[in-house]
Each structure stands twice: as structure tokens, then as C-alpha cells.
């Protein structure tokens, strides 16, 4: 499949602070790419560079086989949706939607057609005559999406569009953005720090930290086989449990203080060397409460019922461990439990390089 957006070895710095350094990223046609990372990781900067709102210090940006590195934002065939909605406060919804087309000198008839199509799609027909100040947050963001829609953008850029909305609206609009992508199949680049949005929306996620892409893969791969400790800890809520351990090659054990975990079933066992210091990572849902030859005995220290699931907290050698169980499960404080790990679904990281083994 051909690439829609190609970011080639770009660098960007504010004064002397380097935000992006030699970053490359290819986004396929029709792909939903999510840039995910904590604040300050450079994801919004990258998006602004693609939009042409910031000048690169080095590298190139290609959109639809066209080198747009020096082109104005308006000539890049993009539409952008901002966290703050960025609707023009003095214009009605209709004027907001048509602003871009009017700037290009599009004929009135065509503008009307496009507005009708976009407002039907987003269910904002009723709002066309209103000013942005008379709209709710969710309505404003719909209008902002509509503004990108009417411009027939080839690539949609979303800059944390749902972060200003409350939880219920966020879920609603997330669903609609996904539907929109299904129906339009445009290329979309979506910046967020919310891992749920990333997991649900993305075809591929690029997890970023300190201006570097840590891992670029499908949501499933990123969740199940995180490339390093940072990705493992950032993705998933409640987050992955980490235990510092030492590898015992002869027994194929991980030693955590006096406790042992049998990891003979780990996929990349052969890459581990004897006595290697590692971090053992296991997601809360991959821990079972059952007694077998490899299980570890511990005490329930805290129970968090969350409706659909129940989170049980315990600890191994002083490190807290969370276990995700069914909502109906019933455990009390200080109950003795035997826990066993699903080694197939665990991750083992080198404690120095923090890379997955």
C-alpha cells in the first residue's frame, strides 16, 4: 500500500532545546495513526510540523507524494482539529464551516452542498445558525471536525480533540471518530495522551517519549509485546506489574528475593543469560488465583471493586502486585491466596537497557 504521509529524518528545536531529532515515520494511505505519549514527548510538535505550523530545522515532510516541507499549511491538503476547538467566535457555525472554502474562493453552490453533507454526517444541521458560544463542548468539537471535513482534506490531523470533554462525551465522540474513519477511510493522524483512545482508535500506535518513537505497531502488539519498560508501563490501566528479579539459568527460574517464578515457557528464554538482572512484567489480568507447583502464597492487602472487574492487591517481597479478577469474585482483607503467572503473556526486560528480551 502506498504511503500517505512520510516524515523523513526531521529535526525540530525551540532555541537550543531539541524537541525532535532525526525522526522518521511513514503513514499508509487510509491508516489511522495515533501518536501516544506523556506531555512533553514531542507528539504535538510532530503534528504541528506535519501541518506546517512549525518550521523544521532539518528533514522533509511528504504528503501524497508531494514534498510539502516548504509549503504553507493551506496547501498541504490537511484538515486539523484542535483540543480547544479553535472555532472563530465571531462567526456562526455555518460561517465557521465555510471559512476555508470562502478563503479559496469556492462557488456558493458548492459550499452549500459541502456544508449540508458534512452537517448531515455530524448531525449538526440544527446548529448552523448559532455562534460557537451557544454550543456545548461536544457540539463545538463536532463543528471543528466538520470544518476539516468540508475542506476535502486528504489527511486529518487531530490534536487531543477529546481532552476537554467529560468522560461520557469523550466515549461518544471517540465512537463517532472511529465511525467517520470507517466511512471516509481518509488518512488520520491523532495525537493523544489517553491510552484508551489510542487502543480503541488506532490501526497503528506510535508510542513516543523524549522526541523518540519507542514503539510503532498495532495496538495488540503494543499491549501484549511492549518493546521496552516505558511502553509497558505507559499502556494499560491498571498498569503492568513489575518485579525486579535475577535469572537462574540452570533451573529456568526468576529469583525475586526468596521467591521463584518458573519461566521455562517464556518465548525468548534462550536470550536470557545466567545471573542476568531483569524486570519481570505481568499484566493484572494475566495473574490467576490458583494453587499449583509454581504458585506463590501471599496475602490480600486491598480490594478495589470496579463493577465489571475487581482489583485485588497483594505483594511479593514488598513489591505491590495487582490482580484483575471478575467482578463477582469475593476476597477479603488478609485472605491467603496462591497466585500463578501466565508466563506466555508476560514480558521480561533487561534491567539496564530496559528493552524487552
Amino acid at each position, binding site marked *: 500500500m502506498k504511503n500517505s504521509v512520510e516524515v523523513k529524518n526531521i529535526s525540530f528545536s525551540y532555541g537550543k532545546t531539541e524537541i525532535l531529532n532525526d525522526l522518521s515515520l511513514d503513514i499508509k494511505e487510509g491508516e489511522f495513526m495515533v501518536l501516544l505519549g506523556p506531555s512533553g514527548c514531542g507528539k504535538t510538535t510532530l503534528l*504541528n510540523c506535519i*501541518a*506546517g*505550523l512549525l518550521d523544521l530545522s532539518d528533514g522533509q515532510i511528504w504528503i501524497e507524494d508531494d514534498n510539502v516541507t516548504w509549503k*504553507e*499549511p*493551506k496547501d498541504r491538503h*490537511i*484538515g*486539523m482539529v*484542535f*483540543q*480547544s*476547538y*479553535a*472555532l*472563530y*467566535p*465571531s*462567526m456562526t457555525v455555518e460561517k465557521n464551516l465555510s*471559512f*476555508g472554502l470562502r*478563503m*479559496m474562493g469556492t462557488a456558493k453552490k458548492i459550499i452549500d452542498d459541502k456544508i449540508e453533507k458534512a452537517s448531515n454526517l455530524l448531525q449538526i444541521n440544527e446548529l448552523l445558525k448559532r455562534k460557537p458560544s451557544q454550543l456545548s463542548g461536544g457540539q463545538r468539537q463536532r463543528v471543528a471536525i466538520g*470544518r476539516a471535513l468540508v*475542506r476535502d482534506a486528504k489527511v486529518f490531523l487531530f*490534536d487531543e480533540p477529546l481532552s476537554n470533554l467529560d468522560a461520557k462525551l469523550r466515549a461518544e465522540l471517540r465512537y463517532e471518530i472511529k465511525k467517520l474513519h470507517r466511512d471516509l477511510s481518509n488518512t488520520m493522524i491523532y495525537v493523544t495522551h489517553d491510552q484508551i483512545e489510542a487502543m480503541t482508535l488506532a490501526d497503528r500506535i506510535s508510542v513516543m517519549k523524549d522526541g523518540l518513537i519507542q514503539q510503532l505497531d498495532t495496538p495488540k502488539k503494543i499491549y501484549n509485546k511492549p518493546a521496552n519498560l516505558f511502553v509497558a508501563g505507559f499502556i494499560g490501566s491498571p498498569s503492568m506489574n513489575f518485579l525486579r528479579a535475577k535469572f537462574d539459568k540452570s533451573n529456568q527460574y526468576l529469583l525475586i528475593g526468596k521467591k521463584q517464578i518458573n519461566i521455562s515457557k517464556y518465548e525468548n528464554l534462550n536470550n536470557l543469560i545466567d545471573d542476568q538482572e531483569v524486570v519481570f512484567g505481568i499484566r493484572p489480568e494475566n495473574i490467576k488465583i490458583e494453587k499449583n507447583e509454581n504458585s506463590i502464597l501471599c496475602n490480600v492487602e486491598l480490594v478495589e471493586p470496579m463493577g465489571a472487574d475487581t482489583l485485588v492487591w497483594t505483594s511479593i517481597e514488598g513489591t505491590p502486585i495487582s490482580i484483575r479478577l471478575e467482578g463477582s469474585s469475593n476476597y477479603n482483607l488478609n485472605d491467603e491466596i496462591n497466585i500463578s503467572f501466565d508466563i506466555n503473556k508476560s514480558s521480561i526486560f533487561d534491567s539496564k537497557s530496559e528493552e524487552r528480551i
Partner: protein
Amino acid sequence: MNSIPSGPRPKHLTIGRIGLYCFILVCAIFFLMPLYVMIITSLKDMDEIRAANILNLPKELSFYSWPKAWSQACTGFVCEGLKPGFFNSVKITVPSVIVSVGLSAINGYALAFWRFRGAYFFFGLCLFGAFIPYQVMVYPLLKIEDALGIYSTLPGIILVHTIFGMPILTLIFRNFYASLPIDLFKAARIDGGNFVKIFIYVIIPMSTPITIVAVILQVTGIWNDFLLGLVFAGRDNQPMTVQLNNIVQVDYGVAEYNVDMSATILTSLVPLFVYFISGRWFVRGIAAGAIKG
């Protein structure tokens, strides 16, 4: 006294409150006293003024000083009152305000949104310019205007007011625009706006409060100006303030205090009027600029 706290907290008139009200009252009297004296003096005739009861209300209302101040009082050998000065002031103020506010809005917009190379240096220069006393620049400016051949002309005085108004106005506009969400500007750029289009279609419609503040500042500043009008306007364009001075500072004949008072009130009427109708906007605009930027 209620012993169980319930509902709104009871309000007590404390000594501190009483002290505060007294202070406010004294302040109000202090600032209103001159205005009171001016108004009643302008309504007295000369005999009563000579009786020297400055705070007494007039025994008999006499309005003759008002039309005299407006159209008959003498400045030197010309006895046309303040009227020509009023129209001169209008001719100076209106174009000066329009030009300086318009240019400053564009400057502020460029400084806030189009971060060109050296923008910070230019901003610092504005800041510096806003705090240099006028007097320092009067003579060099006079020489420049003389060389340009517009010294002592209407365009000359308009240019001077525009120059002196721009640093502070640019600052005000820049701070206001810097407080607008930058995303709005980004969205407009993606939507295809260029420097001029974004300014006209997106920025100007949002500039109402700060434009009102700028206009008030400029109207009152230029109307009240004496020094620049005296130096740069030339004989034919003397603003109202300069003529007022000429009326009050008579070297011969009788000093007609009631006419002086009327003339002074007439001169200050425009800024007074501007403050009264726009006080609400003024506070809002200043606050808007103060919170951010």
C-alpha cells in the same frame, strides 16, 4: 443573637468598615471639590466672585460666561472664544486616533502571531519607547518635521501624535492578542488565511474590547495634550487646550474667572464624556490585557 449558625452569615458593621466608608467619603470630596468650585464659579457673575465666597452657591444664576467662553473670549487680539480650538482639536484627534490605533493593531497582531526574526527585540524597543518622556524627543522631531516640510501643519501634528501613541498601543494590542488562543490562529492558517485575511476576518472581529480601550486612551490623551499641540500644530491648528491657556493667561484687562471656569469645563467635556460612556469597557479591556501576557 442567633446561637445556632444557620442560613446566611449575619452582617456586622465593624469599626474597620466605618473607617473604610469615611476614607472613601473624604476621597470623593477631595476629588469633587475642584469640579464643584468650577461649576458654581462659572454660574456666578463677576460681582459675586469678587465677594470671594468661593464655596458659596451663586445667589443668582448667570449663564453669560458660557457662550462667552465658547465664542467671544479673547486670545490675544482675536476674540472668537474656544470654538475654533474645539474644531482644531477634532481635526487633530480624529485622524490621529484612527491612524495610530489601526497601525498599532496591525503591529500587535504581527508581534503576537507572526513571530518574525527579531520580534522580541522589536517588542523590547516598543516597551522602551513607551517609557521615554516626550520632552526628550520634541526637538529632534521638530528638526525632522521641518526637514520634511510638515512642521506647523495639520499632517505634522497628526504624525507626531501617531508616533507617540504607537509604542504603548502596540504593547496593549500585542498583549491582548497574545491572550487569544493560538489554536485559533493555527486553524485560520490551515483554512487558507494569509497575513491580511486572518487579520481582517478572524482577528478584527474579536478586537472590539481592546480597540475601545485604545480609542479611549488615544482620544483622552490627544485631546488633553498641550505641549505637542503648542509646538507642532502651528498657529492655524492650535488645539483647544492651547487656546484655553491663551484665554486664561491674559496679560491685560480684567481676569474673568467665570469665563475661565466655563472654558476649562468646556475643554474637559470631551474626555469626561468618553469616560462616562465607556468606563465599563475600559475596565474590561484593561483587565483582559492584564490577566495574560
